[in-house]
């Protein structure tokens, strides 16, 4: 005896096993049921209606090929993960810096008003550099050449790391700083350049991606 719901469940299993994503499957199933409804209204019996509806929808391997045709699918997941990671890290650092500056946490407890204002300004610059660039990437130039992009991706962090090296090894040992002075120095020399580079890379990647998606395919 034919059971429509069991047949649909089996059809779903086949699609999932072939690699169709659950979200896409929901939509395909909705389509299948629309077609079933139309056919049964026209007097076709349930089994025949199911078989022909499943057939016109396409085989699982055929659909997987069609869904997989566009490489953006995987890249897009990869990109979302990258964005979440960058957002999480810069977000946490932003909150930490802002809280430290605003509530004068830890080493900033004995800070003078000047140091306090300076740290707050540095924290705000960090937030603007990382997040402002991400959302203002529309104004960014899109670097078409992959080689130039790779050079930029490697060069920017290298420059910052070189600066950190110089700062910690050469500049800092010559200064005799109080804890709050040291913290203010770190805010400006460690976090602000890091934030600028992170924001710049993030913005450039977003600009490139946006242009690529609109122009291609």
């Amino acid at each position, binding site marked *: 005896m034919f059971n429509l719901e069991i047949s649909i469940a089996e059809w779903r299993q086949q699609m999932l096993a072939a690699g169709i994503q659950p979200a896409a499957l929901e939509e395909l199933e909705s389509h299948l049921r629309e077609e079933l409804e139309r056919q049964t209204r026209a007097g076709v019996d349930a089994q025949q209606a199911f078989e022909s509806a499943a057939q016109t929808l396409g085989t699982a391997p055929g659909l997987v090929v069609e869904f997989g045709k*566009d490489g953006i699918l995987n890249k897009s997941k990869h990109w979302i993960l990258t964005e979440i990671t960058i957002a999480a890290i810069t977000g946490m650092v932003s909150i930490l810096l802002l809280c430290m500056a605003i509530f004068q946490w830890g080493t900033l407890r004995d800070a003078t008003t000047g140091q306090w204002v300076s740290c707050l300004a540095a924290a705000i610059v960090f937030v603007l550099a990382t997040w402002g660039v991400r959302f203002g990437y529309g104004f960014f130039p899109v670097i078409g050449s992959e080689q130039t992009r790779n050079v930029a991706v490697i060069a920017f962090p290298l420059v910052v790391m070189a600066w950190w090296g110089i700062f910690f090894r050469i500049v800092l040992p010559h200064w005799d700083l109080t804890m709050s002075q040291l913290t203010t120095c770190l805010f400006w020399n460690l976090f602000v350049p890091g934030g600028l580079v992170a924001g710049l890379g993030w913005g450039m990647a977003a600009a490139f991606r946006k242009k690529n998606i609109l122009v291609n395919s």
Partner: protein
Amino acid sequence: MYSVPMIRKELVAASAEPLILSLLSKGESYGYAIIQEVKQRSGGKLQWTDGMLYPVLHRMERRGLIKARWGESETGRKRKYYSLKKDGKAAMAKHQEQWSLVHSVLAGLKNEQYV
């Protein structure tokens, strides 16, 4: 009576995006209805393998041409509705311009054959 043969699959594939954009410019719609309308308007000559529409819709959504939302049919079944975005309207205008050009060249050549 002269009858138009079924349209070749390359042409079906190439026309999918302009047709979807033009249909959605009349208002939001969902996969099944889009297929039915294309079938009906072409007198059944333009036939998509039903499932192939969805990867095309998803690609267009990712490119920012259309947007999707889950809603419900009159009978309470889940349905994914698509509607046109601003970039989609621009893309539609571009498609229509190009197809009109191809059409006018073809029509011009056809007329010359009978002179």
